[in-house]
């Protein structure tokens, strides 16, 4: 009875052409988010273009880094030997997300482009600028423990739910896309956006653009990296706050550090203020804490999210401490 169609393109070019030519066509990855959104009436596609059978399901070594096909399943990426050795933060972020079954289904592209879990976004009875621009934001004055504390706007206080994206942010990943007008590369940091007054746009992708791969550049310091996810259940829950950290020490001095936060903003939040403060300085607890506080200084929590500020500071500090104390373990 539904009027939705399904297509299996033979090539990435055909996939892009099909979506470009069909109003309402969307890409279908594992479907773990899209199928739910269609049932909820939030997504109303006319055609599902299945990208999971396209030849973009491989993980290849490239210049000390990796080239990860967009249709690679989350489980396979987490299990990849190179990922676990050189980019443990990525493997950890994945296995802390969702459940074993969902990770088996979910693709890298779909994970990056999953939509927010904001309760008001999901409820078709509630106002939501993201779902229906101009209706207002139900979450702003509503129940919103999961909400954003950084980079939010009066129009939207939602967070991006992906764990994988937070790890990729810390790794300076590049996203390869193919659109009707050809291929291009966007930095992962620029893939997702802050809501501003157009919260209905989650990303900077143009309509019809297909994510084909994610490229991770060589980053030796990422061998000592870690993902920490703070959540309401011991497992199978979205992050209240999550932290991805890579740390490079020279004795007691920070030679390099990278930190990204999840669960706090409309996009993975790269902690550039913290990174600048710490780089070249002492790797001491006090320095860690004050740098984390500086990063969170601009936080604008809502009624239910005040706790996230302190939580983020303490979690970042704890992970930095832990990575430092683990020493050469990496």
């Amino acid at each position: 009875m539904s009027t939705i169609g399904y297509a299996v393109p033979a090539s990435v070019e055909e996939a892009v052409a099909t979506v470009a030519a069909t109003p309402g066509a969307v890409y279908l990855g594992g479907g773990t988010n899209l199928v739910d959104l269609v049932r909820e009436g939030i997504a109303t596609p006319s055609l599902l273009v299945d990208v999971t059978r396209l030849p973009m399901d491989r993980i290849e070594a490239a210049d000390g880094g990796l080239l990860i096909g967009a249709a690679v399943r989350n489980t396979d990426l987490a299990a990849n030997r190179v990922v676990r050795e050189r980019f443990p933060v990525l493997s950890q972020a994945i296995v802390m997300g969702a459940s074993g079954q969902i990770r088996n289904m979910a693709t890298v592209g779909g994970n990056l482009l999953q939509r927010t879990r904001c309760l008001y976004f999901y409820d078709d009875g509630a106002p939501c600028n993201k779902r229906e621009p101009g209706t207002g934001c139900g979450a702003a004055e509503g129940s919103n423990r999961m909400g954003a504390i950084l980079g939010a706007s009066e129009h939207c206080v939602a967070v991006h739910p992906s764990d994988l994206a937070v790890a990729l942010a810390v790794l300076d990943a590049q996203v390869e896309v193919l659109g009707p007008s050809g291929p291009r590369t966007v930095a992962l940091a620029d893939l997702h956006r802050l809501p501003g007054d157009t919260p209905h746009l989650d990303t900077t992708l143009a309509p019809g653009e297909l994510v084909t791969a994610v490229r991770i550049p060589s980053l030796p310091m990422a061998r000592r990296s870690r993902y920490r996810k703070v959540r309401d259940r011991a497992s199978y829950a979205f992050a209240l706050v999550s932290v991805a950290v890579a740390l490079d020490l020279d004795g007691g001095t920070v030679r390099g550090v990278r930190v990204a936060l999840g669960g706090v903003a409309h996009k993975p939040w790269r902690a550039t203020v913290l990174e600048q403060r710490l780089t070249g300085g002492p790797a001491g607890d006090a320095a860690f804490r004050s740098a984390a506080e500086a990063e969170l200084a601009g936080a604008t929590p809502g009624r239910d999210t005040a706790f996230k500020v302190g939580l983020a500071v303490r979690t970042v500090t704890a992970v930095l401490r832990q990575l430092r104390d683990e020493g050469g373990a990496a």
Partner: protein
Amino acid sequence: MVGFGLNGHRVTVQVEAFSSLADVLRTRLGLTGTKKGCNQGACGACTVLVDDRRVLSCLMLAVQAQGRSVTTIEGVGTPDALHDLQREFVTADGFQCGFCTSGQICSALGMLEEIDAGIPSAVADHVAAQPDPTELEIRERMSGNLCRCGAYNGIVAAVRAYAGRERAR
């Protein structure tokens, strides 16, 4: 039309593009052992194995099963010939109402394969090196399967016992 292997047989069914595998199994193919507790990926009751991997049949479209091999609880064991893991569930009292059970069992079978394949979990990075999955490990990996009756202890015991016997073999 979609064709796939189902519990060792080949089936072909007429489906709509947006029909879930769970609905097609239950209403078109009469395999009601697969349960739907939420229809949105949040409970695990609908877990089946596709190409030996555990997936949620409520979020997988039936058309996506084209050419794959699907195993449901009906293919795992039958009342007359229970699978060893099913027998352990009985022994260890791994259920009450039974509504989550087929999902737990399919999930556990897929989960043990994942351990053997060296797939990491949030609890341990290198589980492949462990001789026996610990309780913690099983709990973490099985957390996608809710049991509201709270039969978790029995489920973990059943999976442990089964895994131990398989390894001893």
